[in-house]
């Protein structure tokens, strides 16, 4: 729904269910009224300008840690006293901040996001300390996720693992992170998506006022990623956007394998770009001995599990906001419900190809 459609709906006295607007500085605002749980989620997504390379590996992740506190460093105190919570994540697609809470606190959540966008402050000592915290974070990684990270070698053009490694994290400085911050929050690549029981026109106006003030400009020296992947491990399949039938077929068969084999985990983060799906764990080796019937049963179960997963995804206020913010810059017409519709159109050929990919990976 464009700004003109929003105005038309208001003229007719109707409350629009959703609205999208591109601001003069290039940022995009999307608001949808969804659900009856009395909750809302504000998702700010800063799309990555370029794949991260080894020199600055993990620096965006470090910036995320500082930015999440806000320029005033009082974001958490502001939010939590009102029952809201901010979480943040850095992926190859970019940096995403999710603020969730009671729908009545949406203005407070937008204030918190405004603080995230109000500038970067840290000393070199603080950067060094935070790099240690990131290493503590990395130490909590499961073996399935570690293997999935290695499998991104199949998609070398998307850069290095964004969580970071000790060597590059220890090189980070306050000035260096300052430049990464300005590049990250260039308004041309910002999307703010709000889902929940919100007043759509009012929320759009608040979001526009807040996002319209952002005026950072990206001017980072290039840090090219390696041209080729170094090594991959586990059983991994390279996929395109999650909204592609073929990707959903890979997920369906993967879900089916996980359902039928003990000790197998699947890792995938929804993305509008090229990505990997991995199956890992002791049980994966059993795939080599699988019969056609085993694969057929996995496909059958996997389709059901995929449908359940997509239904849960589209029904969650938090997941919707996150999906919208991440997909909008790449697929402007994306709707969370599309995923289940697309999955419903999967063909036997799609599943054959997905099965063949997993079979090849298992050899």
């Amino acid at each position, binding site marked *: 729904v464009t700004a003109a459609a929003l105005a038309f709906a208001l003229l007719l006295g109707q409350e629009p269910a959703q609205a999208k607007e591109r601001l003069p500085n290039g940022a995009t605002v999307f608001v949808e009224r969804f659900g*009856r*749980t*009395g*909750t809302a989620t504000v998702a700010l997504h800063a799309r990555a300008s370029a794949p991260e390379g080894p020199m600055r590996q993990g620096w965006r992740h470090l910036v995320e840690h500082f930015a999440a506190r806000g320029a005033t460093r009082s974001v*958490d*105190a502001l939010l*939590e*006293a*009102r*029952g*809201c*919570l*901010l*979480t943040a994540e850095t992926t190859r697609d970019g940096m995403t901040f*999710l603020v*969730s*809470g*009671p729908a009545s606190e949406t203005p407070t959540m937008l204030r918190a996001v405004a603080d995230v966008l109000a500038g970067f402050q840290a000393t070199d000592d603080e950067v060094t*300390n935070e790099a*240690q*915290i*990131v*290493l*503590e*974070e*990395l*130490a*909590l*990684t*499961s*073996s*399935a*996720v570690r293997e999935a990270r290695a499998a991104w070698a199949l998609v070398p053009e998307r850069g290095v693992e964004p969580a970071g490694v000790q060597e590059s994290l220890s090189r980070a400085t306050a000035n260096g992170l300052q430049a990464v911050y300005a590049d990250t929050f260039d308004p041309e690549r910002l999307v703010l998506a709000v889902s929940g029981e919100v007043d759509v026109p009012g929320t759009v106006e608040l979001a526009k006022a807040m996002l319209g003030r952002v005026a950072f400009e990206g001017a980072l020296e290039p840090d090219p990623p390696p041209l080729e992947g170094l090594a991959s491990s586990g059983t991994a399949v390279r996929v395109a956007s999650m909204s592609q039938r073929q990707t959903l077929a890979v997920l369906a068969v993967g879900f089916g394998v996980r*359902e039928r084999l*003990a*000790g197998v*985990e699947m890792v995938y983060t929804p993305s509008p770009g090229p990505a990997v799906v991995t199956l890992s*764990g*002791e*049980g994966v080796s059993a795939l080599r001995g699988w019969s056609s019937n085993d694969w057929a049963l996995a496909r*059958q*179960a996997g*389709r*059901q*599990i995929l*449908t*359940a*997963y997509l*239904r*849960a995804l589209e*029904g969650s206020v*938090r997941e919707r906001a996150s999906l919208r913010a991440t997909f909008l810059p790449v697929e402007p017409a994306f709707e969370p419900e599309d995923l289940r519709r697309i999955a419903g159109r999967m063909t036997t050929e799609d599943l054959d190809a997905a099965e063949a990919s997993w079979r090849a990976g298992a050899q």
Partner: protein
Amino acid sequence: MTPLLALLLAVDAPLVVEAPVSNSPVIVVQAFVPAPGALDGDQAAAWFALAEALSDGTEEFSRDRFLGYAGQTGIAFEARATPEFMTVRLAVPSGGMDLAGHLTESVLRRAALRERALAEGIDRLRRRRADPWSQALHVYDLDFRRVNRERVLLLYRQAFYSSKVVVAVSGAFQAGEATVELAARLATVGRQQPFRPGYANAPRRTAGTGGEAGVVELSAGRVTPEQPARILAVFALGVGKTGAMHRALRNNRGWSYRQEALLWPTVGGWMPRFLAARRELPAEPGEIVKQAILADIETWDAETLARALGTARASLAGRFALSPIWLDAGGPDQGSVADAAAWAGFWAMAGRPGLSRTDVASLLQEVSLEDLKTAALGLIEESVARSIPGQAR
């Protein structure tokens, strides 16, 4: 036997509790099944194996049928065990109370529990990998060598036919509809089983987290709704990024990336657990954590109280992503339709049927800053520490 006759003759019917949610597109049933007494090592292993084998389906409904209902509702069929109790959850589309009743009866009375499903379940438990945090939270050192189908079937009959079972139902339905549907179906004549209440001492994980980070845990005595200051203290101590643990262990010391307090579900109510992860745990990490938190409590002021109340109210409303409230082993309460059943069933199992989220929130509202600090000091001082090491890389 007619439903009416079954009801009249019932000596062992489980308690059915209802949590209607208007306009819900699904009906969720969650059964809470206490373990039949304190489980020793072999019984604990059989108990966890039973939960895994239940996912195989029943004499009438195959695993694929359950997957089909998951596809229609977005809610998977799940059986999850803690050493003290097990939960079984299923969902059907709205309007399907009859089907929900049939499925529930089938799972609670005629689970398939085939030899092959049991072997696969044990295989899954043996091969299960998790991140270090989940290892500390959920994983027990279980020895399956003496687990067999007879032992699992015996546990199933002892636990699932007990009058201690609570069946909670949420979704869109008329008041009384779920009770009528389920009570008659689940009434069992003359099958009363002895029940010995007691805390199960299933072997806690000690071997290591399997990852680089170790985890230190402080666990305190059970808290009840009659102790609102102790409940609120859990929020002030370890919930959100304004909690004392985050401030003392992450912001002030850079000691740990993740640290949280949980209200962990037990048969009698919530047990507070305080966990913190760190690479290379030092000697006596529990004491280090205790002292850091105790020092932080001294600094608490009116803002601490306000922030604790903010996170507590949001968590009790099911609107806080990092809620410390757990009602089963599946994850924190997020206020979903399924969680409505879990809340009602959990408190009925804990002997407080009808206790609502707003009841607890109202009690917390009356807590003063002094009471909060006293309760927090008490929780930390009484807590028992244990740690699970990580593995250096």
